């Protein structure tokens, strides 16, 4: 039901949520743990960094971490970035720029209640609530010492 991209984004965030707040996780480790192709992940991470959900640090000690604690990140913030159908005035059929009760598409009235249920779940669920999804814990990255 969620797009693959939204699922990947949530899985990537769950990897970060499983780590201590201050620890940076390398992209390649996230890709391995969340089982996401590395190039695909890097595009997703750019979108999430731009939206302020994660912080990216460059350099030899760089990596990604959550910009807020997991209990302050609602699923709607993540899914809304990638799945336009949860946006407030989105059209189910994609035939209108904005679909509303005043100017509906033919699916609008039936879709409205389905979308309300979905948005209610995504708004009411924070990342920490789904953190029980089984992912391996990231191993600390061994860095070469000079």
């Amino acid at each position, binding site marked *: 039901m969620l797009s693959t991209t939204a699922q990947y984004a949530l*899985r990537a965030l769950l990897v970060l949520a499983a780590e201590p707040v201050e620890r940076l996780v390398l992209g390649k480790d996230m890709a391995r743990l969340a089982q996401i192709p590395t190039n695909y992940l890097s595009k997703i991470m750019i979108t999430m960094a731009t939206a302020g959900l994660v912080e990216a640090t460059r350099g030899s000690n760089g990596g990604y971490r959550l910009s807020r604690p997991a209990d302050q990140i609602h699923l709607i913030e993540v899914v809304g970035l990638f799945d336009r159908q949860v946006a407030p005035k989105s059209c189910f059929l994609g035939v209108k720029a904005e679909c509303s009760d005043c100017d*509906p598409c033919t699916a609008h009235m039936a*879709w409205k209640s*389905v979308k309300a*249920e*979905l948005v209610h*779940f995504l708004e009411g669920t924070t990342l920490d609530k*789904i953190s029980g999804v089984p992912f391996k814990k990231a191993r600390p990255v061994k860095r070469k010492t000079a």
Partner: protein
Amino acid sequence: MLSATAEHAVRALIQLAVLGGSGSITGKQLSCMAGIPPNYLSKILCLLGHAGMIQATRGNHGGYQLAWDAAQIRLTDVVNLFDHRRWRKGCFLDCGKDCKDADHCAAHSGWQECRDVFERFLDRTTIAALAAPVPASPLVMPQGKGRRAS
């Protein structure tokens, strides 16, 4: 929610349903009317044709038309055709876990409700319903101003 491909397929089917039994429509026309890139559309139509939902006729007066009654094509049929991988696994995050009531992920119960509502919507919504014109808002007649039946 639907994938872009399933959404395009639904839009193409709606256009064919609007056309009804009055003949067929070329891929080019359908592409313009449904707002789908022609190459993308031809792949979608090929799958819809294999599933038997539409009929393709070759030749000068050829084109596409619905093979099924639009009232018998449910959104579930289209989603099963294009988004079956997305629907096959019940898990919210598709994290490789076969989510069942007894052995489920942390998001399972909340997600299951959404999924049920969405599945009912797909089951109950037909292409015919989506092809019907949107009913105009009912006109509210001011009280006491209506004509009395004679």
